[in-house]
């Protein structure tokens, strides 16, 4: 259908920020000072600066389609020898306008949107003259698919963020990507680009990497990328250059290609199973299209892609992902709810870290690398101090060896980190954080000592995960200076920082904490001083439920795998083993002390700890995971066994109950902050929307609290 046929769809989006298709006729240089002919160059540009990426909405696609159809007519009249598409600086196109797509209420609108993209992009392959896309910058999803649908592609060495993130977003690369990419770069590479990368923290490709894979036919530097792309296009058109595509696969497939295709599909399936427990529908749908697409014609595949896109656009998982990705991670995380005026923040020019253990050393490394100010560690003896400083220096050596930091940066950072057995070194510090044993009396004593040395304005921060910050501040001379600063392990990797405001914490201290978090490149969420704050409280409630059903008599495999449909990054018992059973048990005890019996403390977990076990599961010689008989013999079980479905429902209800309580206690500003914490602090998946959209769509919130966390349509189908 002509692009004009989609006017009705386009009219649903009167507020779309349209990416225009500006057409300019270019006289292609023939390399000898003359012209090889007229080339129609289309620039995709929304008229805004680099802070507003160009995106694809229905109006944008109708305009592009209209311009392309006009070029097809010009080509037929012999007026042009080729057509090219490129973008405004730094962007080809950043992909479909997700905030528009998520407002599509009816399935038929989704079908129309999918169809529109296909019709417009297909024109690129049917112009009567060669088509080119010059990938000058970001090209994601539908943006990269424009390029895939053209006859030829160039890419800039300066282009970052190239990829097909649809499987991550909850869709499929359904504007031809799933059909065209495996044929262009081979099925194994295609699986990497459209399955493995999206599901690996939404990894993307650089320009050179895309060229290496065969996504682009030529690679040019940014300084004269468009000029060189045009010169290259001229040579392709005049047959002075023959394009080689060593990775490409052509129909009908050879036997070897066919086997490689099947192997790539199998690899993709295993990868998705491992990463997501198949909890989200999109990756599986993409793999199905890839698998069937082996035998499809292009037209057949495009038809199936349209159906898949329309189906997936109507899923709650897609809506929850858009909520989690756009509303939370890209927006709310950058503007923390409840943070005071940043202008109140005080400078931090020297940091003290009390303790020199592993957590303290990780903190020292992070502060020194990001704040670039002196950081001093203290501990009770020189051996511990030396070990802490040695850890930091060793990590810097590793970073340097990997080429992640320059020798100069390593030298600078090493020189910033020192240690002492005397807290006197904190005298001129602006910010002192403790990472000592998780025991209130120990922490209070530490802060009393520190307060005797530091200036009145020095901020004191605690990395406690479960103790009351209020109680810790109780005997301070200046309780307003204490703030909770709760990192997640591993400190260098996990993006979340829970900033805990005790009743007396003042705004300047809080503002400094948020400013410091930003410099540390962590996403801070403001939480009230309530035991275990957000992430550990929710995980604690989850552990309570799973350990309880296990102790009641549910077998280990059923109990531990019951949450697979949620697609959490790891099973509860695996996570407990990673955290360390004693630490986990300690947190559960604190939670029970704070909130009562709903935080079950497992007797069996204690038995495992007493027996020196590192975890419930052990790995057999053949690599399989099992709970050894001798371990089971240590444990006591009830006679009430639950099915996996029952365990899942109980856990959903428990989570809904706990989150409902947290919101009524005002632990955070809203369910959005709960979700943000679970995504960034526990790695919970976006298709759950963090957690509260999932509890809404499974009915748990309604069952337990009597109402949903979000109105329908915010993070779910309208």
């Amino acid at each position, binding site marked *: 259908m002509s692009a004009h046929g989609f006017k009705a769809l386009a009219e649903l989006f009167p507020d779309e920020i349209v990416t225009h298709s500006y057409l*300019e006729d270019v006289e292609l240089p023939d390399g000898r000072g003359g012209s090889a002919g007229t080339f129609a160059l289309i620039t995709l540009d929304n008229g805004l600066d680099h802070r507003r990426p160009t995106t694809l909405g229905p109006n944008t696609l109708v305009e592009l389609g209209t311009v392309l159809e006009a070029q097809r007519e010009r080509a037929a009249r012999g007026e042009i020898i080729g057509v090219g598409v490129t973008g405004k600086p730094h962007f080809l196109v950043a992909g479909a306008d997700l905030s528009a797509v998520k407002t599509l209420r009816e399935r038929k609108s989704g079908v129309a949107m999918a169809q529109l993209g296909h019709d417009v992009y297909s024109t690129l392959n049917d112009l009567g003259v060669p088509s080119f896309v010059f990938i000058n910058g970001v090209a994601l999803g539908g943006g990269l698919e424009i390029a895939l649908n053209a006859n030829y592609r160039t890419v800039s060495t300066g282009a970052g963020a190239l990829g097909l993130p649809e499987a991550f977003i909850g869709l499929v690369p359904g504007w031809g990507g799933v059909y065209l990419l495996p044929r262009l770069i081979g099925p194994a590479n295609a699986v990497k680009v459209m399955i493995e990368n999206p599901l690996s923290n939404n990894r993307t490709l650089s320009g050179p990497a895309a060229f290496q894979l065969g996504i682009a036919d030529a690679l040019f530097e940014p300084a004269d990328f468009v*000029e060189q792309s045009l010169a290259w296009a001229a040579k392709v058109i005049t047959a002075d250059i023959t394009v080689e595509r060593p990775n490409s696969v052509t129909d009908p497939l050879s036997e070897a290609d066919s086997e490689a295709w099947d192997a790539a599909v199998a690899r993709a399936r295993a990868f998705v199973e491992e990463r997501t427990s198949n909890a989200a529908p999109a990756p599986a749908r993409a793999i199905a299209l890839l698998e069937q697409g082996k035998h499809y014609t292009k037209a057949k595949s495009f038809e199936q892609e349209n159906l898949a896109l329309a189906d997936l656009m109507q899923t709650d998982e897609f809506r929850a992902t858009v909520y989690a990705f756009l509303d939370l991670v890209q927006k709310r995380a950058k503007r923390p709810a409840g943070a005071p005026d940043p202008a109140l923040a005080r400078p931090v020019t020297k940091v003290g870290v009390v303790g020199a253990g592993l957590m303290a050393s990780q903190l020292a490394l992070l502060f020194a690398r990001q704040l670039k100010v002196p950081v001093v560690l203290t501990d009770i003896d020189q051996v511990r101090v030396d070990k802490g400083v040695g850890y930091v220096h060793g990590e810097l050596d590793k970073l340097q060896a990997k080429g992640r930091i320059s020798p100069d940066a390593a030298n600078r950072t090493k020189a910033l980190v020192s240690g002492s057995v005397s807290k006197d070194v904190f005298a001129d510090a602006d910010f002192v954080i403790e990472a000592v044993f998780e025991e209130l009396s120990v922490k209070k004593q530490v802060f009393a000592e520190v307060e005797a040395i530091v200036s009145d304005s020095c901020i004191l921060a605690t990395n406690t995960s479960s103790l009351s910050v209020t109680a810790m501040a109780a005997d301070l001379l200046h309780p307003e200076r204490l703030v909770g600063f709760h990192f997640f392990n591993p400190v260098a990797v996990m993006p979340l920082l829970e900033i805990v405001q005790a009743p007396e914490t003042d705004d300047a201290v809080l503002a400094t904490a948020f400013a410091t978090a930003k410099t540390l490149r962590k996403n801070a969420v403001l939480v009230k001083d309530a035991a275990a704050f957000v992430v550990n409280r929710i995980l604690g409630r989850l552990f309570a439920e799973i350990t309880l059903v296990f102790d009641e008599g549910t077998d280990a495999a059923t109990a531990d795998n019951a949450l697979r449909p949620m697609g959490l990054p790891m099973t509860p018992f695996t996570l407990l083993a990673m955290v360390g059973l004693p630490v986990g048990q300690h947190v559960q005890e604190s939670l029970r002390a704070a909130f009562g019996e709903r935080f079950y403390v497992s007797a069996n977990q204690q038995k495992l700890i007493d027996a020196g076990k590192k975890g419930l599961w052990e790995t057999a010689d053949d690599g399989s995971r099992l709970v050894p008989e001798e371990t089971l013999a240590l444990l006591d079980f009830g006679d009430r066994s639950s099915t996996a479905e029952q365990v899942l429902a109980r856990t959903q209800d428990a989570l809904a109950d706990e989150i409902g309580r947290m919101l009524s206690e005002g632990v955070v500003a809203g369910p959005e902050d709960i979700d943000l914490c679970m995504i960034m602090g526990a790695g919970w998946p976006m298709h759950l929307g963090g957690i509260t959209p999932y509890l809404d769509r499974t009915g748990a919130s309604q069952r337990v609290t009597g109402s949903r966390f979000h109105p329908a349509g915010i993070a779910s189908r309208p």
Partner: protein
Amino acid sequence: MSQNRQVRDVVFVDGVRTPFGKAGEKGIYAETRADDLVVKCIRELMRRNPSLPADRIDDVAIAATTQTGDQGLTIGRTAALLSGLPKSVPGFAIDRMCAGAMTAVTTTASGIGFGAYDVVIAGGVEHMGHHPMGSGADPNPRFMSERLVDPAALNMGNTAENLHDRFPAISKDRADAYAAASQAKLAAAYAENLIQPDLVPVVTRKPGQGWRLNTVDEPPRPGTTVADLATLRTPFRAHGRVTAGNAAGLNDGATAAVLASAEAAEELGLTVKMRLVSYAFAGVEPEVMGIGPVPATEKALKMARLDITDIGLFEINEAFAVQVLSFLDHFGIADDDDRVNRYGGAIAVGHPLASSGVRLMNQLARQFQDDPSVRFGITAMCIGLGMGGAVIWENPHWNGVDNAPAGSGTGTPASDEENEE
């Protein structure tokens, strides 16, 4: 100090330029940075001369008359870095107003001759839209109070009117006729594809437009007649003689060239388009700066032991028609002499101040290649505040038939001395 030091031959390897644009909001480069124009030239030179390893470039000299904003921060160094040359390649900025690029060439050529460099890049840029002539300058009040220069000397149009006063034989009609011929000669050169091969295409983008590819100069007005020119007003003086039609416009553009020692050119397999014979700069009264090329040329000829009649091709910058005509009159050359500005000149193609010197050299080099009967050529230009510059070049394609007029037989370039007894 070394006793064995020898002056080395300097050769012009290659030169390119951007298409020139009209300065101002409507010009093609209104939204394009000056330094980016230089970068396009340097990168094109590197592509055109693939046997030249980037790390063999010993310096990058880029001229700009106004050295602030996108022409600031030591533009030779910034352009080198932005072009992707190795960080080990240094660069510097240079200024001699209109003769900036010419001075970049002569200064680095001197370095080559002295042995400090093997290979250099020299060029210039002026974005007169971003940097109107004289913008940001703060002339010392002593120029006025002590009458060091006539106030008119600070306005180039006035100096051109002054030159008409000094040489009453140069009428407005002659100036207009010369200007119309310049447009016609450029149009003919374009038609024969003599200009385009040394242009580097540049894409530009403005709000509400897509990328455009600029492959030709914007200023030329082919088809301009003397009658057209006669109607133009004379902005510098009522009933004056200087008009927008018989002067170069206000323009944006950049140029760059590769120079090398003869030995390095041979070692690296570089083309030799011209060989440097001599150069000179000279000062004149600032209020008649257009006469500057005359003493500069006489000086350069003397150093080369050449006579004006030995010069087979002239590339004279056309800041004003009167300035070229005063030069031709001085040396007894006809206004329409076939040896002068064969491809037209700045009146047609434009004059982005500090960039123009290399444009003259590019064109002379191409004429040398096309005309092996010519042995010597000259590039010359007038310079604001009363100066002139002249560079004499020898044609490596010269076919050995000395067709110079009688009387020039004694003329032997200084650099040939070592070959003689």
